[in-house]
């Protein structure tokens, strides 16, 4: 029941796109785990719809990364046949879904990061990436707004909902600075015009988070020094378990389609 793994090359532009594509893919998978489990039917639908948007964005990005990589790897191979070390999403995305507060807080953190990122990518020197971004930026605005409304509702809600939202932010905050870390892959993307350095997204993210946290009457957690390295392929203990589930179908039935 095993299929040989594939491994994309190490081109900087491919790695830059995989970081973003994997972020969308992995968060999409975590959100899909809510299907049938959300506290109300409407949220089941909402989380499923947001997961679908993210999956569509991931498909487009992985397809483009596969083209640039030049080994004729398609979106399915890249999504399902890599080994853990070759996924380049920030660790934040792979954390287990947690409770509903955790999921909405993470969605706000991620959407507030993706919004300025997609906005800038609309001007990418790569026309295909610019086109993907122009579509995605419209979608992520709805994701951000939806998560923001829940963070306010829970944060400024009952004693229990406030406690849960505070706990969620405290758990998530140590993973945030990976979203704004810079390295040579990042620098190459900026130099070539493929996309912005992630560090440049921080002011926009700060402003959006501060606005929502103030409305939710929540205190912003303190920043922590450690920077996780999912974007370098170093993942948490949760990643392998998640991939085992996510990959099982393509591993058992290579090339299988619906």
């Amino acid at each position, binding site marked *: 029941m095993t299929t040989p793994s594939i491994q994309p090359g190490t081109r900087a532009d491919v790695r830059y796109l995989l970081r973003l594509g994997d972020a969308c893919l992995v968060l999409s998978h975590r959100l899909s785990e809510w299907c049938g489990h959300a506290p109300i039917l*409407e*949220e089941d*639908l*909402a989380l499923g*719809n*947001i*997961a*679908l*948007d*993210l*999956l*569509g*964005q991931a*498909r*487009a990005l992985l397809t483009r990364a596969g083209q640039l990589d030049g080994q004729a790897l398609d979106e399915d191979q890249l999504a399902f046949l890599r080994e853990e070390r070759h996924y380049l999403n920030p660790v934040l995305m792979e954390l287990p879904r947690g409770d509903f507060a955790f999921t909405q807080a993470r969605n706000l953190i991620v959407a507030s990061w993706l*919004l300025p990122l997609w*906005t800038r990518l609309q001007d990418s020197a790569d*026309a*295909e990436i*610019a*086109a*993907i971004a*122009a*579509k*995605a*930026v*419209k*979608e992520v*605005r*709805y994701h*951000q*707004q*939806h998560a*923001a*409304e829940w963070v*306010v509702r829970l944060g400024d809600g009952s004693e229990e909902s406030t406690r849960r939202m505070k706990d969620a932010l405290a758990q998530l905050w140590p993973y945030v600075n990976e979203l704004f870390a810079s390295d040579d892959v990042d620098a190459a993307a900026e130099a070539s015009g493929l996309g912005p350095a992630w560090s440049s997204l921080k002011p926009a993210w700060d402003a*959006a988070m501060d*606005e*929502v946290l103030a*409305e939710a009457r929540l205190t912003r957690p303190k920043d922590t020094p450690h920077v996780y390295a999912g974007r370098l392929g170093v993942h948490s203990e949760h990643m392998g378990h998640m991939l085992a589930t996510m990959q099982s179908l393509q591993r058992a039935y290579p090339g299988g389609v619906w």
Partner: protein
Amino acid sequence: MAAGPRAASGDGATDLGCGRLSAAWEVLSQVLDPEVPAVSLVELGIVRDLVETADGVEVVLTPTYSGCPATEAIEQQVREALARFGTVTVTMRRAPAWTTDWISDEGREKLRRYGIAPPGPVDAAQGVPIRLVRREKPLACPRCGSTHTEKLSAFGSTACKALHRCLDCREPFEHFKPL
């Protein structure tokens, strides 16, 4: 958006005079969206172009949402509908990104009659984030016209719609979100 879609009326500007393109547009204007079967693909503004090829026609479509699960179904429907015109080539074109502003006036009226509140114009200030915590103007109920309505969920049965209800006639209804 810098460029709009083709005229939704279906009069092919690239018609070579034999009427085949007009006929093909006519057929396409009868193909309904699989998830919103009140409006045609042409009225939705997702048919971007239709051109004659050596042995058939090429249809250029644009996706509504990145992850819209109907994309493959739409492609299949287009192929079946146009089969009599020869080889059907379906091309997906992302740029410029589809917007609900491309839904024709007729399409909007059909949505409303179907029970879906049509989208308002996309904010002229494209790029300005939707207000993070929004105080929305209530929508008009597509059935009774009352604006005494409330939002139930930001996401409905598909990514493109939200769920609302009318507090006067008590009917739930969907809203095609501006995108």
